[in-house]
């Protein structure tokens, strides 16, 4: 059990998302950086889809109400456990009464706090994610606030497995170093994020010059960017003729272009349908990169193919499988 000490809003309980209900108008929700969520769970020996806390606002502080192992992944929030510095992408055992403090990260947008066993909230429509639009799921269907007490799912196995956890804990390599994309200089300083994009249904309806600039320009991620979607600013995209369309289904990653010509990338809390033309889709394998891209930084689209998109997804799965295998081996070697 942990108690939320921060008044800061917007932290929410999320798992990998609520799949299969878009047809009923229920959005997917789920972690913005699903690789970080899965990795945090892997560090703790949890199923990858266990629920954790997504933290987008700092400082953030919790108190542990029992001895429990936890993991921090995603943005490096310079965590301290009762003043002891904790490296990023790390797991360690907390003692009852200890306080964890997360500070504003230098890079990245979201930090994930996972607990051994996974966060214990009811499964609704197949997921523990908070559906903020529908106000259900997660912790009482809302973001967390001061005084909330969050429990982990009790498990004898995890208690057994983590007797081997070194006193200082241990970590894993963050995915940006295993799966680099784009020019290393700007990604290292997190000033520019590269994501791979597949052309979508209305791609061919745009002027050639617009298509050219879609791929070549730096898009600014505006301050109107959150779990619902990212609004971008740049040279406006122009269609060859006026497009009038009915609403159609959209999924996280779809890049829509309203009449202003300034694209919107729909994300985890997006509504499940919309009528704006779709110029492209950020591939699933790169959505975690978007989840860590901050407002005010630049975004670059890299054209890809369906086959490349699938193999990129395989690479993400390989990364997760490898950290699970090596984490298990490492803990065995510590017994």
């Amino acid at each position, binding site marked *: 059990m942990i108690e939320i000490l921060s008044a800061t809003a917007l932290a929410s309980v999320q798992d990998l998302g609520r799949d299969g209900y878009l047809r009923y108008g229920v959005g997917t929700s789920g972690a913005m950086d699903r690789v970080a969520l899965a990795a945090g769970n892997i560090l703790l020996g949890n199923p990858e889809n266990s629920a954790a806390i997504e933290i987008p606002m700092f400082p953030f502080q919790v108190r542990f109400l029992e001895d429990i192992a936890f993991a921090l992944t995603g943005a490096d929030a310079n965590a301290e456990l009762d003043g002891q510095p904790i*490296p990023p992408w790390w797991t360690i055992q907390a003692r009852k009464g200890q306080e964890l403090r997360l500070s504003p990260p230098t890079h990245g947008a979201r930090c994930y706090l996972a607990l051994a066993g996974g966060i214990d909230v009811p499964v609704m429509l197949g997921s523990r994610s908070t559906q903020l639009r529908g106000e259900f799921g997660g912790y009482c269907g809302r973001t967390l606030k001061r005084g909330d007490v969050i429990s982990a799912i009790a498990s004898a196995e995890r208690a057994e497995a983590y007797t081997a956890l070194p006193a200082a804990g*241990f970590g894993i390599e963050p995915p940006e170093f295993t799966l680099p994309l784009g020019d290393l200089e700007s990604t290292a300083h997190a000033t520019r994020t590269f994501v791979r994009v597949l052309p979508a249904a209305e791609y061919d309806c745009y002027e050639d010059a617009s298509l050219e600039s879609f791929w070549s320009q730096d898009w600014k991620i505006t301050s109107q960017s959150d779990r619902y979607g990212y609004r971008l600013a740049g040279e406006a995209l122009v269609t060859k003729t006026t497009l009038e369309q009915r609403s159609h289904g959209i999924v996280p990653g779809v890049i829509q272009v309203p009449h202003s010509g300034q694209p919107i990338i729909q994300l985890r809390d997006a509504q499940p349908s919309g009528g704006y033309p779709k110029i492209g889709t950020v591939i699933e394998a790169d959505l975690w990169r978007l989840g860590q891209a901050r407002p005010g930084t630049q975004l670059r689209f890299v054209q890809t193919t369906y086959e490349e998109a699938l193999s990129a997804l395989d690479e993400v799965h390989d990364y997760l499988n490898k950290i699970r295998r090596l984490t298990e081996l490492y803990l065995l070697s510590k017994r």
Partner: protein
Amino acid sequence: MELNELQQLIAKLEASGLRSLELSRPGERVKLTMSDNSEVQVVNADDTVELFAAPASLQAAPAGTTVLTEAAGLFLATHPMRSKPLAEVGQSVKKNDVLGLLKIGPVYAPVTAPADGVVTQILASDGALLGFGAPVLEIAASA
């Protein structure tokens, strides 16, 4: 443990240039040590001492305690997400603080402070491949 598995481990040990390898899993432990004539000796680990456990003398840091690696791996003085090294000369550290990382595949194993003290010397260079028991840094007991 199957014989072919053991042979694979021996081959890996020979190829790695390490002196010793210990593998534990539920129900069995095996320890392989290269002898001086570079043949592999197989020892039932239950009969041997823990070679790489931190010596008991490290509980309170005497002057100039050398912190050794407890695994083989690539030494990272700085976490790749950060620009500041985990330990710098003159830095006060508390027992169990993480002073460096050993990268073993995708795992980052901690190099930890055995006791409260002050970092007096960094001995391992960033990016170096370190074996078991290699010196990483030195700390002195805080006054």
